[in-house]
């Protein structure tokens, strides 16, 4: 019996931790976590730092992965902090880690914009804790996304 109580308590503690984690990552990239002005700055940085490998449409090439489509599937379920750390650690390929955190945040904002994630009223922070609190979600099946080709918002429930 005692064992069961201990197990139940442990489970409850784990659930609490999960709820805590959930609370910390309650925002989603679907909620508008960057500004248009930031994405514009990011576009300029992207053009000089990233475009040569990842392409003008973020389509990638035979060596560099695309930053659209499968890219979203690859990062779905993680946080913007995870993605940010990866960029900061490995990019740009010719000089990894050489860009300032604010520049990486701007570039990340641009990547989100090209992938049809909505902009908002607050800039994307470059602070690790803030980034870790934003969930990386895929486009919602059945509606709510924006068509990246035409830019038109696709009607439907989020």
């Amino acid at each position: 019996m005692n064992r069961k109580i201990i197990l139940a308590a442990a489970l409850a503690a784990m659930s609490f931790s999960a709820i805590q984690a959930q609370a910390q990552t309650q925002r989603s990239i679907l909620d508008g976590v960057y500004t248009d002005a930031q994405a514009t700055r990011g576009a300029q940085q992207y053009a000089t730092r990233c475009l040569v490998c990842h392409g003008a449409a973020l389509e990638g090439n035979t060596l560099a992965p695309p930053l659209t489509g499968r890219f979203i599937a690859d990062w779905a379920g993680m946080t913007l902090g995870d993605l940010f750390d990866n960029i900061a650690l490995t990019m740009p390929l010719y000089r990894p880690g050489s860009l300032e955190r604010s520049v990486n945040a701007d570039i990340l904002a641009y990547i989100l914009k090209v992938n049809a994630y909505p902009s908002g009223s607050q800039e994307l922070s470059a602070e690790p804790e803030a980034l870790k609190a934003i969930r990386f979600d895929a486009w919602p099946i059945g509606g709510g996304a924006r068509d990246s080709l035409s830019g038109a918002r696709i009607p439907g429930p989020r």
Partner: protein
Amino acid sequence: MGLAGCAATPRREASAVAGARVAVEDIPPRLSPIRAHPDRLFDVTVCIRPFRTKGPNLDVEHIGGATVIHNYGHGGSGWSLSWGSANIAVQKAMSFNPKEIAVVGCGVIGLTSAIIAQRAGAKVTIYTRELLDRTRSVRANGSWTPDSRIALAAEAPQNFGALWEQMARYSWKMYRSYLGLAGDPVAFSDHYSLSDTPRGVPRPVDPDVAPLPRPTWTGLPTQNSDFARYEDRISDLSSKPQILTDDINPFPVKHVSRATRMFFNFGEYGHLLMSQFFAAGGKIEIREFHYPSEMAQLTEKVVINCPGYAARHLWKDPAMVPVRGQVGWLIPQPEVKYGLSYRSVQTLSKTDGIMVIALEHGDMKGYNDANESVRRAESEQAVRVIEELYSRFPGGSDKA
């Protein structure tokens, strides 16, 4: 046969001919003649090109609880753009992070979409009325023609040129990995353009070719220049035409140029694509769709929609226009390793036959014509043009 005339000339001497504009390594090899006779036409096929005046539809649409990514309307450029277009559609599909994807249609657009989706990590089921070898895809030309009837210049979206280039370049890279394989699924061959008049000078009116009827439909197009052209964007991918001077011209026609083109052998290439799809765990379910709403009933909630010309009826897409094309097939001649164009007739030698296509009126030919019945007389007439060409070679012992 006069075709072999150049082969009888030692190459070193040929290179020394004054004024020769073609380098010794570019002198045409010995060319085997095409046995072009109407009785050797063993098949005539008709295809309705899925032309879309606005260019291919790659939009995302939500139906019920499902998300549909369209991939149709590639006109005369489906084979050429297939991989690039599939990649764009699949990248959109993967943005929804699906574990399973449905592909509707098993023409070359559907099949390449399915393979790219597998490569992106999805489990794929193709829902289709027919398998590839019975789709309109294999009744097409099957050459690298990435901007053939791809859109009307006046109706293509402003950013379509850049998108087209992305598709064309991606496809070109993909085809690289299908070269050099057994059975030549994808290959290059020389194409000779023969003309009785110098380049740029209009041909005299051929009394055998009926003039185009006045258009009976409303709106565009009325002439070849109404179709959008983008080939200049990828001019770095293709070799430039060479003019063959008299001393090395193997044909009994005054003006000849040559270019090297990529093409697809439907049989081997189609078999390879199907095999790759199955080897990666792909499944096929034979099914016909009557209404878009049926797609919401599929197990998979992300659907890539590749119906080809059927989009006109299934999706009631008013931008879809049928463009009829017909191919006459002469019995295969593996020794014929080139194609030619002469007096509005084009030939292309493939592993499964020599295609003979009448091309009078250029891009306007077959526009808004949905009649898929065979007109054998048209193909026989085209064969006779080629037959007459070869009859002008002196016959005899030099047969290749």
